[in-house]
C-alpha cells in the first residue's frame, strides 16, 4: 500500500509537468496578449512600437514561449506563482482571497448532494418501479435538464424580488458586520440558500440516479438472493450487503467531484455576485492574465490527480477485491 502510494505520487510529477506544459503553450499561443487586452480596454491603442515592446518586457513576454515556461517552472519550484498581469498582485494572494467563498459554497453543496443522493438512490432502487421511484425519477430528470442560470434567475425573481425573503447578492448584507454574532450567522446562511440550491440540484439528480443504477445492479446479484434465502431481513440486506457495494462507483465519482470544490462554478458565481475562484478564472482567461490562469490550472490539476489517487486508495476499503499490495 505504502509503496503503491509512493509510486503513484512519483507519477504525479511527470503528469503535472505534462499538464502545465500543454496548458502553458495553449494559452500562450491563443491570439492576443495582455498588452493588446489593455490597449483594447483602455482604448489607448496608440502606442509606439518601443512602448509596446517595453510593455511586453514589463510582463516578461518578450522571451520565447519555451523560455517563459522554464522561468515559470523555476518560480513554481519555490511555490511562487508570479504576479497577476492585471493588478500586479501575487497570484497566490488573489487565489487565497477567493478560496474561502468557493470552498464553503461548494463544500456545503457537496455534502448536501451526498447526504440526499445516496439515501434517495438506495430507496428508489430498493423500491424500484414503485410510485416513489417513478415520480422521483421523473422530477430528478427534469431538474437535471434545467439550465442552472435560468433556475437561478427564476429563484431570484421569486424569492429575492417578488417575495423579498431571501438575499441574492454576495455573501453577506452591507451592514452584516454590525450585527450580533447570531444574526450575522443567520445572514450568512440566508445568503447561501439560493446559490446552494442552484449548485446542488443538478448534481443531486445526477448522483442519485447513479446510486440507484448501481444499487439495482447489486440487488440482482446472486449473493443478495442468497442473503434473502438465508432469511436476512430487508434492512440488514440493504445496509450490510447492498450499500457497501454501491459505494464503489460512488467513490469513483467523488474523485471527479472533489476538484470542483475549488474550481468553482463560473456561471453561478457570476449570477450571485459570489466572490469566488470561478469568476477569477474566467476573467483571467479573457484578459490573458497568464500567471493567474497558470496558477489556477496548476492547483486544479494537483487536486484532480490527488483526488483520483484518494479515490483509488478508498477502493481498498470499500472493495476487498482491490488490493495494491
Amino acid at each position, binding site marked *: 500500500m505504502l509503496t503503491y502510494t509512493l509510486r503513484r505520487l512519483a507519477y504525479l510529477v511527470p503528469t503535472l509537468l505534462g499538464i502545465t506544459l500543454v496548458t502553458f503553450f495553449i494559452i500562450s499561443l*491563443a*491570439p*492576443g*496578449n495582455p498588452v*493588446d*487586452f*489593455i*490597449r*483594447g*480596454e*483602455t*482604448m*489607448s*491603442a*496608440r*502606442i*509606439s*512600437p*518601443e*512602448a509596446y515592446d*517595453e*510593455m511586453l518586457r*514589463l510582463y516578461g513576454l518578450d522571451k520565447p514561449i519555451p523560455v517563459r515556461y522554464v522561468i515559470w517552472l523555476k518560480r513554481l519550484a519555490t511555490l511562487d506563482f508570479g*504576479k497577476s498581469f*492585471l*493588478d*500586479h*498582485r501575487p497570484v497566490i494572494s*488573489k487565489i487565497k*482571497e*477567493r478560496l474561502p467563498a468557493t470552498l464553503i459554497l461548494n463544500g456545503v453543496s457537496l455534502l448536501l448532494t451526498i447526504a440526499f443522493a445516496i439515501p434517495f438512490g438506495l430507496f428508489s432502487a430498493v423500491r424500484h418501479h414503485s410510485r416513489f421511484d417513478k415520480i422521483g425519477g421523473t422530477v430528478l430528470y427534469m431538474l437535471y435538464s434545467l439550465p442552472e442560470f435560468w433556475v437561478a*434567475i427564476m429563484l*431570484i*425573481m421569486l424569492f*429575492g*424580488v417578488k417575495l*423579498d425573503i431571501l438575499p*441574492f*447578492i*454576495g*455573501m453577506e448584507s*452591507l451592514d452584516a458586520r454590525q450585527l450580533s454574532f447570531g444574526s450575522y450567522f443567520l445572514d450568512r446562511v440566508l445568503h447561501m440558500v439560493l446559490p446552494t440550491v442552484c449548485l446542488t440540484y443538478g448534481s443531486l439528480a445526477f448522483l442519485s440516479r447513479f446510486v440507484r443504477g448501481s444499487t439495482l445492479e447489486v440487488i440482482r446479484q446472486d449473493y443478495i438472493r442468497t442473503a434473502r434465502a438465508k432469511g436476512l431481513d430487508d434492512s440488514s440486506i440493504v445496509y450490510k450487503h447492498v450499500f457497501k457495494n454501491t459505494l464503489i462507483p460512488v467513490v469513483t465519482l467523488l474523485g471527479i467531484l472533489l476538484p470542483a470544490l475549488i474550481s468553482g462554478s463560473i456561471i453561478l458565481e*457570476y*449570477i*450571485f*455576485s459570489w*466572490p469566488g475562484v470561478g*469568476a477569477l478564472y474566467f476573467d483571467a482567461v*479573457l*484578459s*490573458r492574465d497568464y500567471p493567474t490562469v497558470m496558477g489556477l490550472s496548476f492547483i486544479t490539476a494537483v487536486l484532480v490527480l490527488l483526488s483520483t489517487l484518494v479515490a483509488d486508495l478508498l477502493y481498498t476499503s470499500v472493495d476487498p477485491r482491490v488490493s495494491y499490495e
Partner: protein
Amino acid sequence: MRLLRHGVLVAILVVTACSNDTDREGAAKRNPPPVEQPAYGGTVLRHLQSDCKTLNWVLYTTVYEDYVLRYLYDYLLDYDADLQIVPVLAESYDISKDHLRITVTLRDSVRWHDGEFVTSDDVKFTVDKILDPAIPAVNKRSWFEKLDKIETPDHRTAVFVWSEPYAPALHALTQLAPIPKHVYGQSDFMEHPANRAPVGNGAFKFEEWRTSQTISLLRNDDYYRDNAYVDRVVFRIIPDQAVALAALKTGELDEMKVRQLQWETQTNDKEFLKKFEKSYYYVPQYNYLAWNCRSVWFKDKRVRKAMTLLFDRQSLNEKVYSGYAELVSGPFYINSWAYDKSIDPLPFDPQAAKKLLDEAGWIDSDNDGIREREGVNFEFEFSSTGSRIALEFAQLLQEECAKVGIGVEIRQLEGSTYFDKVYKGEYDAAALSWRLDNDPDIYDTFHSSEVPPIGLNHTFYSNTTVDSLLELGKVEFDPDRRREIYHRVHRLIHEDQPYTFVNSVPEKRPISKRIGNVVISPDGPFRFYPGAIYWFIKSDFVNAKK
C-alpha cells in the same frame, strides 16, 4: 457591442464642449433644480458591473475605476455640468501668449486624506509617473507627450511648459488628478499597498475594498470645499445585469446603467416609475463600420459610399435600439461644437449603391450572382465580436449586400483576438465603436501617418487635405477657426466614407428618486465636476430601510 472606444483617454472623459445650450432633441434631460433642502446622512448605493483592478489613479484604465476615483481625487481642472473648463484643485491658471506655458496655482491648504498638504511636487510626481515608460499609463500619456517639463517655483505653483504649441493643452489639464508623492514615494509603484487603499484629496475618503463584493467610501469632513451630504458611498459589484436590475428594484442599488431591453420592457411599470427617474443621455461615442481602404474592394471611395447606402441604419435604429439612437455622419461627438450638424447622414438607397458599384467597375459579368472586377469576386469577410448587436449589424449588411451581388461572410471573434486583428489592420470590414474625448482632435485615428501597427487609423485612410487640417487643428487656439477646421474635416471624411458612420447610442440609467441633487450633464451624471459628490438622500428616506 463592445468595440473600440477612442484612443488616448479612454473610457473617461467628461463632456465635450457643447456648441450651445440646446442639447439634441431627446438627449440629456436635465433634472429641475432641487427644491428640497439637502439632508445629511445616509448611504448612496452605486453599481459596478465589474470589480476594479486598482485604485491607483495613474494606473487605472476602466470606467468602473473612474466611477470610484472621481469621489476620491479632484482634478486640477475639470469640466462643469455646462461643459466649461473650470479650475477645481487649481485656484486659477494662466496661459502665456505663445501658448507654451500654462501656470497653475493650486488652492491654498488642500490636504490629502492623511493630513499632508497637496503641493506642486505632487503634480510633478504624478506627471512623471504618467510619462515613465516602465509604468503602463498609456491611456494618460498621450496628453503629455508634447510636454517639455514642469517647473515648480513654489509649493503652490506648477508651470506646464510645452515643447510646441498644442491646442488640447488646457484640456490635458482636465485629465490630471495629482496623487500623493509622500505616500507613493520611492517604493514599488505597481505593487504599492496604496493601490488598494488610496489616499486621495476629494470629498470622500477610502474606507474599505472587499474584492468582488464592495468598495466603500466615507465622507471627508475636511474637504476644502463644502462637505458632501451622504455619510457613505458604497459600490456593489454585481456582474449580472438581470440580477443588478433585481437589486435596483429591491432597493439594494440606487442607480445602474440598464440595457436596451431592460429599459423598454422591464422598467416601465407604475411602481418602478414611482421609485426611479429614468434618464438617458448621449455620451461621446459612436458606432461605425470600418472599411479597410487597403483591401481590393474598399480602396475605391465609390464602393465605400455604396456600402453605406446599402446599410439601412434607420431601420437598425428602430429594430435594435427602438429609436433610442441618433444617426451620425461624422467622427465627432454629436453634442460637440466640432460636429457639423449641416451634414446629413447618407440615406438608405440600394439603387444609388448599385450605380456606384457599376461605375467602380464591379459588375456581375459571368452571371453567377456575384459582382466581380478583373477576375476578383466581390466577396469579403465581415468581422465582429460575438455580441448580439454586432451580429445584427453583420446580418443586416449581409442581407442587403446579397441583393446587389456582394458576398459577405460573417466572422465572429473573441474579444482579444478581434482587437488584435483590428489593430494590425488584418481584416476586410469590421463593426466597431469609438469612445471620444472632449477635445475633438482626431489626429490619432484619421491622420495617414497613424496607420497600424502603431496608430489607430486601422482603415488605412489617407487624404492629404484631411492630414493638413488635422495638423492645423492641433495648433489652432482660436475657437472659431478651430471649429471651422473640424467642420471641414467632418465634410471631407463624410465624402470619403472610410467608415460607415452608424449611430450614437445613449446610456440609459434609472436613478432612485430618494436621491436629491442629481444633475445630468450631456455626458451623464458622473463625468464632470462635481458629478455625484453632492447627491443627498431626501430627508424622508434617510432613516428608511436601506
